[in-house]
């Protein structure tokens, strides 16, 4: 597409987010690009690398202990999106810290670590250990608190939809994260996302990420039962883009809290819609699963305008 007249920024230039300079405004979203390592040798004729121009890879959410996740099947495609019920399968914080994060650093992948926990107070120790182990890392830029994954019973629904809990999580993490960006990822499954954003800001985040997946369900017509063993899944992809835009607008105009826009972004046009509403950065989720170069392509398209 052509550069829109109103577009003045350079999304591939470094920008400040709280205490930290990040290398760009186009990121990959948590859970849709693994730990950011699986595609390191992928090539494409039209794009230098899956990491070219990225501001950050937000890692799959890491929990204190390893998790095996939910029973299969975990994914259902719908006509304009998908439902997932992965259940936060991850290697656990220890393995992440000793194995994954050093490799990301070694490969120079700009990284935001996504964390989830069962109680707000669990965030403190994780962030402290991160800080201790990785304070010298140049490519570790921050932490995103996943306060919104609807697939995990103990940390699900109510966890992230109470402003007070959001505040406690943020406060616990902020205390030990003086020099990296701190983000809270908010749930859209609430009537008032703006008040969650305010709670997060007041407790010390540098930005909020919005949105995580929307609660959805699909029925297998052969059985008349939901496809997913846990009935509900997290709805993502193109279908939720207008919902994400609405939530981002509610936060930006309602509160002024800096927002990283997530939800349904696959193309530069999609990303621009979030920037138009005032998002400071964007994340590409589901589209990154289809195309490991999706975020890099968005960054390339935006970057090309800055030089023209």
């Amino acid at each position, binding site marked *: 597409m052509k550069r829109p007249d109103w577009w003045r920024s350079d999304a591939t230039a470094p920008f400040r987010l709280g205490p930290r300079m990040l290398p760009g405004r186009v990121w990959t979203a948590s*859970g*849709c*690009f*693994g730990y950011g390592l*699986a*595609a390191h*040798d*992928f*090539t*494409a*004729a*039209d*794009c230098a690398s899956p990491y070219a121009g990225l501001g950050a890879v937000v890692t*799959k959410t890491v929990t204190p202990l390893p998790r*095996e*996740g939910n029973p*299969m*099947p*975990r*994914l259902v*495609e*719908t006509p*304009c*999106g*998908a439902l*997932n019920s*992965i259940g936060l*399968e991850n290697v656990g914080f220890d393995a992440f810290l000793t194995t994954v994060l050093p490799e990301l650093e070694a490969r120079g992948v700009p990284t935001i670590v996504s964390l989830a926990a069962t109680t707000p107070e669990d965030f403190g120790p994780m962030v402290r250990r991160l800080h201790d182990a990785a304070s010298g890392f140049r490519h570790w830029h921050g932490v995103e608190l996943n306060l919104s994954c609807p697939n995990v019973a103990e940390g699900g629904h109510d966890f992230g939809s109470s402003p007070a809990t959001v505040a406690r999580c943020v406060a616990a993490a902020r205390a030990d994260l003086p020099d990296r960006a701190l983000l809270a990822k908010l749930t859209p499954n609430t009537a008032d996302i703006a008040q969650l954003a305010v709670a997060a800001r007041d407790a010390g985040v540098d930005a909020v990420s919005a949105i995580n997946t929307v609660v959805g369900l699909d029925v297998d017509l052969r059985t008349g039962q939901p496809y997913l063993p846990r009935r509900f899944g997290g709805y993502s*992809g*193109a279908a939720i883009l207008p919902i994400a835009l609405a939530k981002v607008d509610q936060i930006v105009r309602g509160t002024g809290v800096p927002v990283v826009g997530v939800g349904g972004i696959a193309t530069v046009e999609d990303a621009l819609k979030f920037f138009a509403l005032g998002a400071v950065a964007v994340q590409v989720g*589901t589209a*990154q*699963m*289809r*195309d*490991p*170069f999706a975020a890099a392509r968005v960054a390339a398209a935006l970057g090309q305008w800055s030089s023209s």
Partner: protein
Amino acid sequence: MTGRPAAVAAFGKVIANELVSSAFHRLDVVLDVPFAFLPGQFVMINEPGPRAWTFSRPFSILAGDGDTVALLYRVVGRGTAALAALGPGSPVSVLGPLGEPFPAPAEGQVTVLLGGGVGLPPVFAWWRRWGQPGDAACFGARHAGEVPWGLLGDTWRVSVDDPAGLAAGHRAASGVVTSLVADDAELPDGPRVVTLACGPWPLLRAAAALARRRGWRCWVSLEEHMGCGYGVCKGCVVRVADGGHERNATCCQDGPVFDAERLPGLVGSDLPTCGDGPTGAKGGCA
């Protein structure tokens, strides 16, 4: 994992897309980049642009050469129906090759290839690359009309569930595909024989049971519903034995080829039964 060719995210154009039997389509695509693969690997395929499905669809590689790739598929749902509607010249996006291939043959190995229905491509590709005169290449289908005779030529042994309608000049045993080799005395017992199998779950169970009985090694190619195909979403996990316990492995990155002995779901029970396999199992025969 080492030595796998790196995946490319390629744009391609359909060269040909035709039925090669009553139920199987062959798709030939030319890519904008060179393409190399190992037998057993697969690609994720999609329509590019606004008509893309949210998730690409996984298909084993039947053949690939220079900058072309060929698939063999059956129409089972909307993605494969859309695929079947693509005429020559249609653009497609292709990500691959992906996944763990079948192992290359060791010195002195005798190989038993077992392909059921659209489970043919990985074993077919292996046979083309590494097949030797002493190996047994076996294909099973539900009925004679399904068999892609032109592709298989003379060297493949064929079995069909239902032998009705077998045309003159075509030979096929009746029964499950494992019966083609179960009691083949020319195949020695013991680990010199390696079975490579791909097809519906009952075929894989029968293959694993046969291999156990005769002391053969056995590798199977699994199917699971996939989101990404390259290991990042954890949408395709299968349970594998690891030392004394079980853990999740990704079908797309740790597999789709697994050592049958490491799959508790496959070898755990004595009798092959239907329906308790992975969520998707290659429709086909046997």
